[in-house]
């Protein structure tokens, strides 16, 4: 656990010094969601049916786009090398970075999602499911995306490649996340689906940082 709290504190500090990196994904999320009524139709019935997919896809894209910079600036400034030679378990420092990133980028998405859900005509009764689904889903998206980010960190124009690598891996989270909301709309029990999302999260949190640490080492040439 050595280095975990120091890294967490530092990441939060960094985000406070350059707030655009925190606000932009949130802004992206809101803008993308509000494009759909304009592009498709403002009819409440249609919007309600589309809402789970629209919100989840927008959240997924916002998370993915925010991850491109997770290791890139560190790599360019040589901070990543310092992290790799430090006598701490990379597992925990990576976990700290992801946790900080989720607190600053993921959590605001979760908090703003009910407002967008309401605007897409979702009944108030399902907004709780929307939030708990995103609460369990966005950390998984962060971890899975960070695996892709660690593999593309040294590459020019890596952001397109990141999307190609990561989007297929996002499918289970998307299916269960949007599915939980869909079931809530039909007044079916959602807890089993949320439990699956939680299982995916547990798997991602326990194994993901290993893969990310290995990916970072591979990208720097080991």
């Amino acid at each position, binding site marked *: 656990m050595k280095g975990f709290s120091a890294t967490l504190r530092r990441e939060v500090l960094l985000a406070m010094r350059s707030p655009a990196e925190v606000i932009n994904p949130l802004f992206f999320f809101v803008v993308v969601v509000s494009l759909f009524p304009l592009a498709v139709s403002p009819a409440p019935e249609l919007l309600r049916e589309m809402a789970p997919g629209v919100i989840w896809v927008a959240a997924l894209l916002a998370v993915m786009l925010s991850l491109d910079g997770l290791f890139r600036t560190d790599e360019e400034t040589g901070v990543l090398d310092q992290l790799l030679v430090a006598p701490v378990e990379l597992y925990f420092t990576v976990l700290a970075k992801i946790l900080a990133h989720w607190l600053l980028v993921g959590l605001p998405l979760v908090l703003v999602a009910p407002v967008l859900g309401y605007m897409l005509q979702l009944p108030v009764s399902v907004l709780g499911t929307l939030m708990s689904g995103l609460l369990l889903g966005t950390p998984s998206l962060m971890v899975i995306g960070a695996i892709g980010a660690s593999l593309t960190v040294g590459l020019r124009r890596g952001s397109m490649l990141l999307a190609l*690598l990561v989007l*297929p*891996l996002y499918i289970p989270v998307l*299916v269960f996340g949007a599915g939980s909301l869909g079931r809530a709309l039909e007044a079916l029990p959602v807890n089993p689906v949320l439990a699956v999302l939680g299982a995916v999260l547990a798997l991602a949190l326990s194994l993901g940082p290993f893969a990310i640490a290995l990916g970072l080492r591979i990208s720097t040439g080991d």
Partner: protein
Amino acid sequence: MQESRAVHRSQTTGSAKLPGHFYLISLVALLAAVLTWFIWSAPVRPRTVWLGGGWVFGVAFYFGALRYPDLYWRTLERWYHELGSPRYFYRFSGLWLPWLVGIAVVLCLTGLIWGLAFAPPHHEQGNSYRIIYLHVPASSAALMGYMAMGVAGLVALVWRLKMAEIMIKAIAPFGAVMAAISLISGAIWGRPTWGTYWIWDARLTSMLILLFLYLGVIALQNAIRDPRQAGRAASLLSVVGVINVVIVRYSVDWWQSLHQGSSMSMFGTAGSAIHPSMLAPLLLSMFGIYFLYAVTVLIRARTEILWRERKSNWVREEVS
């Protein structure tokens, strides 16, 4: 360094060497036995085929290992040291390749012609079901290929075995083609069956995702300039992808049940028996496609070995 060690080890264990084609012939004989057994047995369900085949292989391997532990251990060691060394792999694959090509061509031609012209039509789908003689082998080859990439990736990451990285690079292109064939044949089969070329059916959707995963591995390999680094990165991605494939299949099945899509499968209604006269050509073409897969993997791996080892003396002698 690794090269010289492998040479040394193989010389010390070399006294009990069996001729290289011994393994190949015994493998083919075993496959033929399994095949015959299923053709002669009563109508069987597809799942029984897999379970039964697995049992036959497992029991044969287990009793073989009990009876000849020394032979098995030496064989394993030989595989590790010789197939793990690019130079030996190149030599052995060169010996095997003509055999494999022959077997692949014979099995594919027999299976496909049998399936197209001799097998009876399906009682629900008529003649359009004959597409399964391509679709099912291609789907299973695509899935098996990705699993093999995952295993090779794990080996490459843990033991830093160069051959495992080369195998991933060799498996990926044909796996992607197999996934594409599965999609194309599935789509064409869907037109007479569902009345449309594309439907978001669970199998087709999983296969589409598998194709994306293959393309991701290929894209990552092409984006990284240093082949060793690219090999390791692709290994990690394959391992992550294999874990994901399992969850993807589960999630897509669940998603299908949620939206109550088509439950029609190429075997007719799910779980129904398949008649041996239809199954035999299917198994033939399936093994044919597997052998074809092995052939292209070996060809690509040999090319990659030559290129990676181009500075070594044995490649110089080999080429000129």
